[in-house]
């Protein structure tokens, strides 16, 4: 067994065969974390004893003949998803000391299926960022090249999976926060449709955009975790009761009869040539697998970033109001009134990027500006949704880049917020429209950095995305095949 490259599916098969135990898997990962985390800062907190005791419990269950789809499978969890008894600080100072009283619904479902929770992964504070440089606990680094960012905000999860410190990890995706780091680090990042996976217990950033998803070493692992987590939840009114797709439709070997749309707005002149080449090569593979590719247009794409950077901060400004030092988390010393307490606690507790977004959100909602910004953005959001609705009349899934370039260098964009925001340009649309989307590694560039393609599917047609990704991955020689491809 090599935990550095084994997929979750292979690890589970090994557990079933008795090739190894969950305890061995977890010990192996813990050793890798011990050795590698200092350099990468992918994990914020790992309770080795707790992880091992969960693994042993799973092994005992297995020994008793019990079976569950994920029994003994270790998972890393982004620091914004509540796991009972663990910290859940969203990589922020303001939640120092906070212990989650309950599992998030997604965690509870994974736990019921036997998963073992390994530790908390690094992220941009409150998921606000695209590089994991805005973490109060220090930046994470890209395991493919430590001078580069791992992407964000789920950068710790992506780095842990890519570096062999986790077999799979959970992330959250509000504007690309799973797909972009997956692309930068070279793993499969999957964001299910909005409403598929309960957000209960995911610390909210932008409630109408957030969705829990996975970062894995292979497409089948994404499918596996999706089916374990998805489904309606009475505690999240935005989850849907629509039936899940057929699992076999998510495990395709060819793409016969499938129409793949290629939107021209996603290939602007500023797109890095290696990314363009990698995505177009993926389109070529689609055709080789029997798909038809078709040029499509999503005409309101150029407005997506403006819409996103109004809607998300607006919702965030309300969602983050609760961090006030009264009921949990950090409290500033010396306050003389509640007002003073709030101002001091929040000023000490939040980092600059979070403050910028809170300011922007409060501004676009404030009296006199609401119509011009927030309401207009909500209307423009309708146009973006309608673009996709129209596009999906002509195709089954959309193929596009995930990011304008491969991973950028540490510090390159931290001084210029707008430049940082623009890295979400190809990903935030799926959140605005509530679609499912997946980032699939395609090739290595000349610098040894991964390049990825994005598959976007209609809402609640996760099979369209997972099925196409499975076929592509298989065509390239399995989960590690992309590493041998050049662009």
């Amino acid at each position, binding site marked *: 067994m090599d935990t550095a490259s084994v997929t979750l599916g292979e690890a589970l098969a090994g557990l079933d065969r008795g090739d190894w135990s969950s305890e061995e898997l977890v010990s192996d990962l813990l050793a890798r974390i011990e050795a590698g985390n200092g350099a990468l800062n992918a994990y914020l907190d790992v309770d080795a004893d707790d992880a091992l005791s969960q693994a042993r419990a799973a092994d005992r269950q297995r020994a008793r003949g019990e079976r569950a789809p994920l029994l003994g499978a270790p998972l890393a969890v982004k620091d*914004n*998803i*509540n796991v009972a008894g663990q910290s*859940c600080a*969203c990589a922020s100072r303001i*939640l120092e000391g*906070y212990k*989650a*009283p*309950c599992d*998030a619904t997604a965690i509870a479902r994974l736990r019921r299926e036997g998963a073992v929770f390994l530790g908390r992964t690094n992220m941009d504070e409150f998921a606000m960022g695209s590089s994991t440089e805005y973490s109060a606990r220090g930046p994470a680094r890209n395991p493919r090249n430590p001078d580069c960012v791992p992407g964000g905000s789920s950068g710790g999860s992506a780095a842990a999976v890519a570096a062999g410190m986790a077999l799979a990890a959970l992330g959250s995706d509000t504007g690309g926060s799973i797909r972009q780091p997956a692309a930068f680090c070279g793993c499969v990042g999957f964001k299910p449709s909005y409403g598929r996976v309960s*957000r*209960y*217990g*995911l*610390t*909210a950033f*932008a*409630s*109408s955009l957030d969705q829990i998803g996975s970062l894995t070493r292979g497409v089948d692992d994404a499918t596996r975790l999706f089916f374990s987590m998805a489904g309606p939840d*009475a*505690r*999240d*009114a*935005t989850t849907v009761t629509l039936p899940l797709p057929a699992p076999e439709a998510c495990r395709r070997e060819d793409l016969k009869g499938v129409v793949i749309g290629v939107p021209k707005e996603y290939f602007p002149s500023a797109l890095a040539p290696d990314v363009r080449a990698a995505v177009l090569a993926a389109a070529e593979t689609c055709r080789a697998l029997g798909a038809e590719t078709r040029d499509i247009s999503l005409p309101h794409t150029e407005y997506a970033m403006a819409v996103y950077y109004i809607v998300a901060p*607006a*919702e965030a*400004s*309300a969602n983050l*109001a*609760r*961090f*006030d030092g*009264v*009921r*949990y988390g950090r409290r500033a010393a010396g306050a003389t009134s*509640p*007002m003073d307490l*709030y101002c001091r606690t929040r000023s000490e507790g939040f980092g600059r990027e979070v403050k910028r977004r809170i300011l922007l959100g*409060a501004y676009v*909602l*404030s*009296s006199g500006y*609401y119509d011009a910004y*927030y309401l207009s953005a909500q209307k423009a959001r309708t146009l973006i949704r309608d673009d996709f609705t129209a596009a999906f009349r002509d195709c089954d899934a959309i193929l596009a880049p995930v990011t304008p370039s491969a991973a950028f260098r540490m510090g390159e964009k931290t001084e210029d917020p707008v430049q940082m925001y623009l890295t979400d340009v190809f990903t935030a649309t799926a959140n605005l429209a509530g679609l499912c989307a997946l980032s699939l590694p395609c090739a290595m560039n000349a610098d040894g950095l991964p390049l990825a393609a994005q598959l976007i599917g209609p809402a609640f047609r996760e099979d369209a995305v997972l099925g196409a990704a499975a076929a592509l991955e298989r065509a390239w020689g399995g989960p590690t095949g992309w590493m041998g491809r050049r662009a």
Partner: protein
Amino acid sequence: MTYEARIGLEVHVQLKTRSKMFCACSAEFGDEPNTRVCPVCLGYPGAMPAMNREAVELTALTGLMVGAQVAPLSVFARKSYFYPDMPKNYQISQYDRPLCIGGAVAIEWEGREKLVGLTRIHLEEDVGKSSHFGTSSGVDFNRAGIPLMEIVTEPVLTAPEEADAFLQALRQMVRYAGVSDGNMERGNIRCDANCSVRLRGETALGAKTEIKNLNTFKGVLAALRYEIRRQQDVLAAGGRVAMETRRWDGETGTTASMRSKEEAHDYRYFPEPDLMPVAMAPEQLAALQARIPELPRARRERFCRDYGLPAYDSEVLAADKAVADFFDETARVSDNPKAVSNWMMTEVLAKLAETGRTLAETPVAPRQLAELIALVDRGQINMPTAKSLFATMFDKGGDPVALVEQEGLAQVSSADDIGAWARQAVEENPKSVADYRSGKKAALQFLVGQVMRRSRGRAHPQKAAEALEELLKG
């Protein structure tokens, strides 16, 4: 110069649900602080609201009762402001798409019926409760998240007493329909008032102030009286009333400007992304329509018509639904509805007031009260016996017929028995006899009392008086 006031009310009515508005915590009153809390009502990271169907239906039911339009689509919104008793630092409320629009509440005002127009009724969550010590305050979140219905009137009330009449009518209605316990002491009904004063004859409204912290009906009356006087004085002295929020202080009996609350008031409302809109289907509204009980006014009219009660009796009996229901059931099985009314208005209400209990908490059944009245009407027991019997029934329960039998309380009317007691009374009280004979007729009452005592209360009082008069004649 004469001034006239214009008053509008924002009334918060706590809905009678078992659980809170957006979480399953118990909505019951009381208990130790912070024992009815969960991640949702404490505003924990990741917690999400789940809408209580009953709270929505009770609000829509209220809308139907006041003839409001129940909106075909209604939306929840976040209202942002920071306060320690507010767990999320935003309140889930409704803004531009409330559940009910318009409608009116009928009140009696200046001898006539007046319709007080409503602007809207919306649904929101309550906040926690803080208490203060030394340099700190402590917050209990048991109340946080309890469903509140906010009823906003048009600024059409003209006097504090009219505002009071509106609140009484509203309270009666929500209690009738089981929408709220309407208990002011428990904070089930709280109220903010806005108030302006203008010269009589002017058409534009004057500058208004908003008065907060009106937690009792008496407080509303006193605060409005004070505030109207204050504004009149400002205007009479040539000044201008400042548009501001003022806080009523029940202890000093004054309102004072809340400047601290004025700072940067910008609620930044936006639609709540965590909740879906409410769209009441016609069938749902029809089902709610069927839940509307007979309302106080209709009931008063029916009591007069069907039971021949005077208007005053009907009003007293219909004021409280439990009382009215009890009366209704008793009167239906009794041959003497007027006597039932008398009993209800005197003995029953007095006993309830004295013990602080509700009718539901007493063992007396309507049928038993009707039987008790029948025993009196048939002359089987006398009134004093009936009253003491009722006290027993109220405290310990029991069937009046059986009790009369067990305790031997049946009224004694036989001339022999009464004659014997009367003779004893006359023999043993020569002074009273002399008084009576010398013209002090009141002495007879004393002698009747003696007969009653000897009979252990069972003697027919009229017959006893007659027997005594007969004896004393000679």
